[in-house]
C-alpha cells in the first residue's frame, strides 16, 4: 500500500463528493428540515393554540356547568371562551339542534354536553367541527375529569388541592451511574440518542450510496482499469473510503455547527421553540458523549463504507446496485430499530451482546452510553471489536475488490466470492 496513491484517490473522491449536487443539497436540506421540525412546526401549533376556542356548555342537570366553565377558563392552549352555560332538558338531537347549527354557522366552535351518570356522577360529550386535535381534546378531557373528581371528593372529605397536586405530578427520574447521579435522564437520552443515531444513519446512507454509485459508474464506464494500471485495488478502495469519510465528516461538521448555532443563538430567542424542544442543552451535550459519538461515528462510518464499497464492486449496473445496497443497509436499519429496544432495556444480556457486534456497535453502544453508561471496559471492548471488524472486513473486501472490479456484464456469485475470500 502506497500512502501517496491513497491520498490522491481520496482527494479526488472527496472533491467529487463535496462538489456533487446531492451532497450540497443534503447538507443544506437536513438542517433546514430539522429547523422546520424544531421551530416552524411548534410555531404552527402555537398559532392554532393562540386562537380562542368558543365552546358552549350544556348541562342536562348535573349542576357542574359552572365548575366546568371555571376549569375550561384555566386552559391556556388553546384558550377557551365559554360562550354560554345553559340548562337543557336532555341531550336528544332536537335539543342539540340549535347548537349544532351554531357550530355549522361557525358562531361557536363546539359544545360540551354534561349528562348524569349513575356510577361516576357525570359524563361529557364534545360536539365540534374539529375533533381530531389530540392536545386540545386532552385539555378538554382533563377539565371535565377534574370537575367531576372535585365533585366526587367533596363528599369524602379529602383535600381537593392535595389530590390535584398529585394528579399533576410526574414520576421524576434520576440516572445513577459510576460518575454520580443525574436528574431526568430518560427523555434527554432518548432525544439525543435518536438524533445522533439518525445523524450517523443519514450520513452513511447519503455518502455511502454516493460512493457506491461512483464505483459502479467507474466500472461501467471502464474507467477502473485506467486507474488500476497505476493504483492497486486496495489503495483504490482505501482512498475511496477515506475520501467519502472526509466528505461525511465535513457534512457532519456543517450539521453540528448549524445545530449548535441554532441551539445557542436562535433557540433562546424563540420562547416556543425552547418550550417545545423541552430538552436541557447541558444534559444532551456532555463532552464525554461527544467524544464517544465522534469515535463511534467515525468507526461506524468506516465500517459501512467498506461494506458499501465492496457491494458496489460486485455490481455491474446501477439497477443491480440499488438491490444489493439494501442488503448492506439492513444491519444499519436493524441497529436503528435495536436502539429503541436498548433505550428501554439498557442492561439486558441481549443489549450487551448487540453492543459488542461490530455492525451494531456504533448505534447500540452509543445508546447504552447515553442511557445507562456501561462499564468502561465494555465500551472499549466494543470499540476494539469494531476496529477489528473494520480490519477483517477491509481485508476480505480488498480481495473481492480486486476480483470483482474488472468483471463486466456478470455479477460474481456468492460461492465465487467465498472462493476468492479463501484464496490468498
Amino acid at each position: 500500500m502506497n500512502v501517496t496513491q491513497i491520498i490522491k484517490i481520496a482527494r479526488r473522491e472527496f472533491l467529487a463528493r463535496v462538489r456533487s449536487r446531492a451532497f450540497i443539497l443534503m447538507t443544506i436540506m437536513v438542517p433546514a428540515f430539522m429547523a422546520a421540525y424544531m421551530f416552524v412546526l411548534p410555531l404552527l401549533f402555537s398559532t392554532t393554540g393562540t386562537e380562542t376556542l368558543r365552546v358552549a356548555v350544556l348541562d342536562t342537570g348535573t349542576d357542574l356547568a359552572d365548575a366546568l366553565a371555571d376549569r375550561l377558563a384555566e386552559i391556556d392552549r388553546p384558550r377557551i371562551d365559554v360562550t354560554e352555560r345553559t340548562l337543557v332538558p336532555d341531550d336528544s338531537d332536537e335539543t342539540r339542534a340549535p347548537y349544532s347549527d351554531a357550530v355549522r354557522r361557525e358562531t361557536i366552535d363546539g359544545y360540551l354536553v354534561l349528562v348524569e351518570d349513575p356510577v361516576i356522577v357525570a359524563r361529557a360529550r364534545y360536539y365540534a367541527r374539529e375533533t381530531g386535535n389530540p392536545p386540545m381534546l386532552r385539555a378538554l378531557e382533563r377539565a371535565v375529569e377534574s370537575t367531576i373528581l372535585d365533585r366526587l371528593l367533596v363528599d369524602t372529605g379529602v383535600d381537593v388541592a392535595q389530590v390535584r397536586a398529585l394528579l399533576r405530578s410526574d414520576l421524576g427520574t434520576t440516572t445513577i451511574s459510576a460518575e454520580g447521579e443525574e436528574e431526568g435522564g430518560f427523555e434527554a437520552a432518548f432525544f439525543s440518542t435518536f438524533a445522533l443515531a439518525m445523524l450517523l444513519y443519514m450520513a452513511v446512507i447519503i455518502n455511502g450510496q454516493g460512493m457506491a454509485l461512483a464505483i459502479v459508474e467507474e466500472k461501467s464506464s471502464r474507467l477502473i482499469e485506467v486507474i488500476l494500471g497505476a493504483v492497486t485495488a486496495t489503495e483504490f478502495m482505501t482512498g475511496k473510503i477515506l475520501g467519502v469519510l472526509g466528505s461525511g465528516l465535513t457534512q457532519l461538521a456543517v450539521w453540528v455547527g448549524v445545530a449548535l448555532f441554532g441551539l445557542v443563538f436562535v433557540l433562546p430567542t424563540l420562547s416556543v421553540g425552547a418550550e417545545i424542544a423541552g430538552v436541557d442543552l447541558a444534559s444532551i451535550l456532555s463532552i464525554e458523549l461527544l467524544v464517544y459519538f465522534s469515535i463511534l461515528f467515525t468507526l461506524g462510518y468506516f465500517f459501512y463504507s467498506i461494506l458499501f464499497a465492496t457491494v458496489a464492486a460486485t455490481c455491474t449496473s446501477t439497477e443491480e446496485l440499488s438491490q444489493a445496497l439494501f442488503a448492506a443497509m439492513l444491519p444499519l436499519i436493524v441497529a436503528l430499530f435495536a436502539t429503541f429496544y436498548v433505550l428501554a432495556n439498557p442492561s439486558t444480556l441481549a443489549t450487551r451482546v448487540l453492543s459488542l457486534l461490530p455492525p451494531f456497535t456504533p448505534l447500540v453502544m452509543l445508546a447504552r452510553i447515553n442511557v445507562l453508561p456501561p462499564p468502561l471496559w465494555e465500551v472499549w471492548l466494543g470499540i476494539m471489536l469494531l476496529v477489528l471488524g473494520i480490519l477483517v472486513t477491509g481485508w476480505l473486501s480488498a480481495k473481492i475488490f480486486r476480483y470483482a472490479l474488472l468483471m463486466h456484464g456478470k455479477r460474481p456469485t456468492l460461492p465465487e466470492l467465498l472462493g476468492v475470500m479463501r484464496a490468498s
Partner: protein
Amino acid sequence: MSTPAVALRCQALVKRFADTIAVDHLDLTVPTGTIFGLLGPNGSGKTSAIRTMLGIYVPDAGSVEVLGSSDPMAVRHRIGYLPEERGLYAKMKVIDQLAFLASIRGLDQKEATRRAGAWLERVGLADSAQSPTGELSKGMQQKVQFASAVIHDPDLVVLDEPFTGLDPVNTRLLKELILEQRKRGATVLLSTHLMEQVEALCESICLIDHGRAVLSGVLADIKASYGRNTIDLEYRGTAGALASVPGVRRCEDTGQEARRELEPDADAQAVIRSLLDRVEIQAVRLDHPHIEEIYLEKVGHRETAPDTTHAATA
C-alpha cells in the same frame, strides 16, 4: 538506473479463471526500445496476458519481469498503460482529469497540471481544457486517454487496441505519437487487430491464440522464414482467368490486383509464366507474405474469429 536489454519478459505465464484458461504457459520477450506487436483474435487472451504481466491480475504460475523487476507494481510509475476498456470521469474537467491521471502515475500535482496542459496542446484539445470530459467526442476522449498513458514519460508503454474509434487523421496522429515514444527511448507493447499498423510500426511480434504463443520473433525474420512465396500481381483480363493455376495454394483476387501464395515446393518462375499466358500483366513482384496473411494462416481457420478477418481487411 541501468536499462536492461529486455523491457518485459514472461515465462510460462499462466492465468486461469473459474473454468477457462486465459493465459496458457505464455513466453514473451520484449526487447528494450522496440515497438512490439501483441496480436491475436478476439478472446485469444491478449488483454488477460497484459493484465497479468502488469500485475492487475495475480498470475497462477510462471514469472514476469518488467523493467528489471519481478513485481510490476514496484515499477508501476515507469509503466504507461492504456487499457482496451477505458473510460474517463464524465463530469471532471478535461485538464483536471488528465492532471489527476498524471498524478496517480507518480507526478506531483504541479508538474501533473503543467504536463496536462502541454499534452492537451499537443493533441489539439487545448480549447477543451475547461470543458467537462463528457462533452468531448469519443475520438477526443481517446486522445486524452492516450495522453494520460504517456504523460509521465514511462519507460514501458502498453497500448491495448489504441486505434479503435479513431478517424484517419487521428490514426495518423496516434501513429506519430507512438513513434515519438520509441524515439524518446521507451519500449512500446502494442496490442492491435490492425495489421497495417503492425506492419508499419512493429519490429517484433507475438501472435497468441487460446492463451498460447503460436508465433513470435522479429517481424522481418518471420517474413523471411516464409521466403518470397507470394506473387503480387497487377493485371488486366477477364475475371476468373486466374482460377486454378497449378502450384498456387491460396489466392486473393480483386479483379485488377491479385496476390497468390505458392505451394511450398512450387516453382515461382513457372507459375509466373503460366500467369502470363492467361492475362495481360501490368506489374508482377515476388514478395514475402504480409503479416495479415501469416496471421490468417495461423489463426484464420478458426470459425470463431469473424472479427479477425474483418479487422484485418479494415
